[in-house]
């Protein structure tokens, strides 16, 4: 379900795509844990942040995959009782 519109047509006429990227990339920087901020926004920095964001997303999605597999194995071997799914467990999880 991907659009065929090129990005250049989609951006506003007042700002070039580069400016938008550089501006908002700072926002991403603030949210990504391991990147070093406090650097002058430049085209190179923005590209780096974009790349790091992509690899961070891929890393997180891979962890979701692995954890799903692990949970599937665990569900198969435990839980004849439903105790583990209770509010109790939710509270203990949120304290972590």
């Amino acid at each position, binding site marked *: 379900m*991907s*659009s065929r519109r090129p*990005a250049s047509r989609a951006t506003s006429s007042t700002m070039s795509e580069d400016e938008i990227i550089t501006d908002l990339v700072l926002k991403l920087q603030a949210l990504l844990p391991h990147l070093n901020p406090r650097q002058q926004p430049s085209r190179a920095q923005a590209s780096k942040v*974009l790349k790091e964001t*992509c690899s961070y997303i891929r890393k*997180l999605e891979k962890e*979701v995959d692995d954890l799903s597999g*692990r949970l599937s194995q*665990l569900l198969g071997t435990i839980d004849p009782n439903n105790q583990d799914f209770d509010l109790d467990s939710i509270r203990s999880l949120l304290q972590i």
Partner: protein
Amino acid sequence: MSATTQQLERNFTHRFLTSLRRMNSPDSKTTTTHAAGLVIRRRSLRIKRAAYSSMARAAAGSHRAWTRAVLSRTRSQRRRQQHGVRPNYIIPPSQRRKSVKRAAKLKKKTKKKSVVRRLGRAGKLRELVPGGSRMEMGQLLEETAHYVQCLAVQVRVMQAVADHFSSSM
């Protein structure tokens, strides 16, 4: 952790655990190890889907485009899994993994260049963020930031759930 993140985490955890509880079925029916592996594999796909749709629903208070894209994707995945693989071309299991891998590699190769050339510097990001190909650049970066935040919460909770289950064995 901010209050909204905490609320998101609680909301997601509740939905996710509810889905897991519905899925709970000990492997008493399977006899062979092969069948058990299949059950585990299928369930892991269901768990993954449940995680993404629970998160999309928990995060939907912000009315994000990525949450809508995730929910429509999980819906079609569920339909595909229910209807199963079409049996008109049977590949022997020894060959299947190779041919699937080859096809996926070819698809990835031919897709990558065209995406980057057409969509500029954020092409890869558009592929990764659900619904990203339809977004304007500004929206794409906002959605990315939110998606990343939610993914991190999702991973954290799934990790905690897995640890909880392994410790209570």
